[in-house]
């Protein structure tokens, strides 16, 4: 222990070590999983909380931002469940199968498990780990696209509960599945959720994830979604960050994509004090089509970081990355995007674009695109813009009778809409645009 622990310095790191020591015996899963947790925690201890001199975390200095680590979340009480019941309202208009987690724990009585479509199974990760589900243990035990990442390692050490969703080969699940993650108590705690979604060959599914909690409470969330997509499957994933105004939220998507897959991912962030969305996507089959998109609408002193690593490991994959940030007040939007084209991954086609709209002099946008290309017959490009609203466009709208504020709102909606438009599900698309309109209205 002593050789490792001497690197631990901050209060948050000390608390996490204490929490792990106290909790590891009762965290779900024995044997291999317990070993995996230990390894992951050792890894965290070696690395410590990432700070600005760690390139991947350059703009989001977690060591500085995380003054302390909160105690692990407790079993949800009645009040917490009551709040979880209405959580995820941002997509209330969408007919989706709600699977609810309060304080990170699965709440069956709030979840809709009735009449599961043929080929669909939904279970609790804590239960799967406790029962030693061989497939779950094997998938969580194998190195995935997020291997080596410190936030994912911390999650592996502490992972409590989450969803295990399987869609059988060829099953087309029409009704979206909505994973509702809610922080419902008035105690500032840390929630570690881990979900595993395995989509069979030729299957189809739309997965929505929402994360929310009360305003003004400095709780912490570390959520990981491991996604395995079989060949020729079509998967739409929309993640909604609606955390409370003082929350720290770190989320990791680790996706392994098969051949000829159509995968569309959208990350939408309007909540949270500090948000870090990590997307690790590996195209592990040929000719997949991947869309990674997102929009952040930030105000006050909000900070949202989108960091993605897209690995074109095999030939013929096509990817589009489009991220939009609307930054008001003193908010800060960060984008780091790395596209890797492996040797032999010929005919890869990747285009990455980020646009930041600065609504205030004090807002800040940081952009770091990277292309690592090891094949010679590829098309890859990236672009980034950051700027204020176009005054000439605004004048054009106003000259037609549209008042100042409405003209701005219309232009901002259009700006965000360019990314949101790519979401396949019409109801989700409309719900997000309505959320944008509400955000703009609140801006005044």
């Amino acid at each position, binding site marked *: 222990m002593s050789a490792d622990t001497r690197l631990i310095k901050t209060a948050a790191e000390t608390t996490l070590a204490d929490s792990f020591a106290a909790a590891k015996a009762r965290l779900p899963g024995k044997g291999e999983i317990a070993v995996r947790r230990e390894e992951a925690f050792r890894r965290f201890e070696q690395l410590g909380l990432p700070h600005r001199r760690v390139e991947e975390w350059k703009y989001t200095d977690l060591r500085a931002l995380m003054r302390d680590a909160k105690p692990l979340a407790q079993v949800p009480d009645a009040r917490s469940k009551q709040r979880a019941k209405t959580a995820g309202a941002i997509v209330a208009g969408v007919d989706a199968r709600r699977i609810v987690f309060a304080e990170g724990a699965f709440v069956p009585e709030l979840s809709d498990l009735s009449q599961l479509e043929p080929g669909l199974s939904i279970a609790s990760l804590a239960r799967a780990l406790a029962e030693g589900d061989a497939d779950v243990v094997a998938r969580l035990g194998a190195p995935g696209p997020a291997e080596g990442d410190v936030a994912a390692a911390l999650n592996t050490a502490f992972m409590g509960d989450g969803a295990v969703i399987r869609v059988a080969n060829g099953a087309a699940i029409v009704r979206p599945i909505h994973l509702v993650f809610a922080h419902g108590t008035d105690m500032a705690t840390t929630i570690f959720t881990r979900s595993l979604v395995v989509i069979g060959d030729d299957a189809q599914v739309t997965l929505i994830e929402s994360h929310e909690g009360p305003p003004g409470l400095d709780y912490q969330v570390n959520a990981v979604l491991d996604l395995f997509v079989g060949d020729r499957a079509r998967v739409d994933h929309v993640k909604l960050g609606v955390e409370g105004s003082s929350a720290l939220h770190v989320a990791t998507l680790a996706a392994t994509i098969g051949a000829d897959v159509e995968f569309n991912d959208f990350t939408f962030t309007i909540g949270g004090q500090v948000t870090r969305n990590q997307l690790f996507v590996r195209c592990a089959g040929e000719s997949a089509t991947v869309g990674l998109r997102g929009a952040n609408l930030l105000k006050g002193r909000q900070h949202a970081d989108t960091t993605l690593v897209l690995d074109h490991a095999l030939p013929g994959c096509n990817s589009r990355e489009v991220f939009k940030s609307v930054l008001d007040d003193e908010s800060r939007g960060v984008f780091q995007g790395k596209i890797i084209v492996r040797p032999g991954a010929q005919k890869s086609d990747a285009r990455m674009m980020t646009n930041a709209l600065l609504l205030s002099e004090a807002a800040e946008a940081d952009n770091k695109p990277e292309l690592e290309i090891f094949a010679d017959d590829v098309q890859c490009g990236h672009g980034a813009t950051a700027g204020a609203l176009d005054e000439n466009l605004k*004048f*054009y709208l106003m*000259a*037609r*009778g549209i008042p100042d504020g409405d003209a701005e709102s219309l232009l901002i909606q*259009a700006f965000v809409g360019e990314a949101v438009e790519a979401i396949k599900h019409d109801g989700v698309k409309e719900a997000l645009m309505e959320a944008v309109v509400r955000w703009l209205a609140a801006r005044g």
Partner: protein
Amino acid sequence: MHLLEVKNLHVEVDGKKILNGLDLSVSKGSVHAIMGPNGSGKSTLAHVLAGKKDYAVTQGEVLLDGADLLDLSPDERAAQGLFLAFQYPLEIPGVATMNFLRTALNAQRKKRAEAELSTPEFMKRVREAAAKLSIDTEMLRRPVNVGFSGGEKKRNEILQMALLEPRLAVLDETDSGLDIDALKVVADGVNRLRSPNRAMIVITHYQRLLNHIVPDVVHVLSKGRIVRTGGKELALELEANGYAGYQDEAA
């Protein structure tokens, strides 16, 4: 009373004087052409009337129906019945043309304390106006002016004018970038909107537009002032002799 009165208007852009005591009176129902060489202040006049920022009025006044226009914001001027057809209509990605038209029309109606148009009534008006300009409805579903040809953009301007029914329309170089067929479609569109209750100011460098939109009055603008006013025959004279004499006259 004149619908529009411009009195001794002085305007600067970035400290540079562009308009130098311009006077102009336009009465209801009339069409005035303003012609002049490049740099004479034609577009500045159009933008100042519409209320664009960056144009500093240092002297003079502009009255619409006797009420001061210069204190109003661009949207308030539009609601008062002023319309500027842009020389270079802007592209607005992400805003569907239909949504834009509807938002603009209802914003103006709201400011005038008129009820919003119902969707069927709005659609009917748009379809009728679009058909007259040979604008197909597919174009209206596209983002404003994005991917439109030069002719389509100008037709879209006239469509907006038809829907918004202004009292005073200012057409800034509406003929620029148009071939003769497109010019004819646009001019026909403008002519249909001529009415005893509406005045128009047609700003152009060339006489050819005025073959199609025949003005009642022609003004020559040079060095920021109206230096000559006449009937439609003045445009023909300019076409024959050019602006050379006027540049000297103002200097």
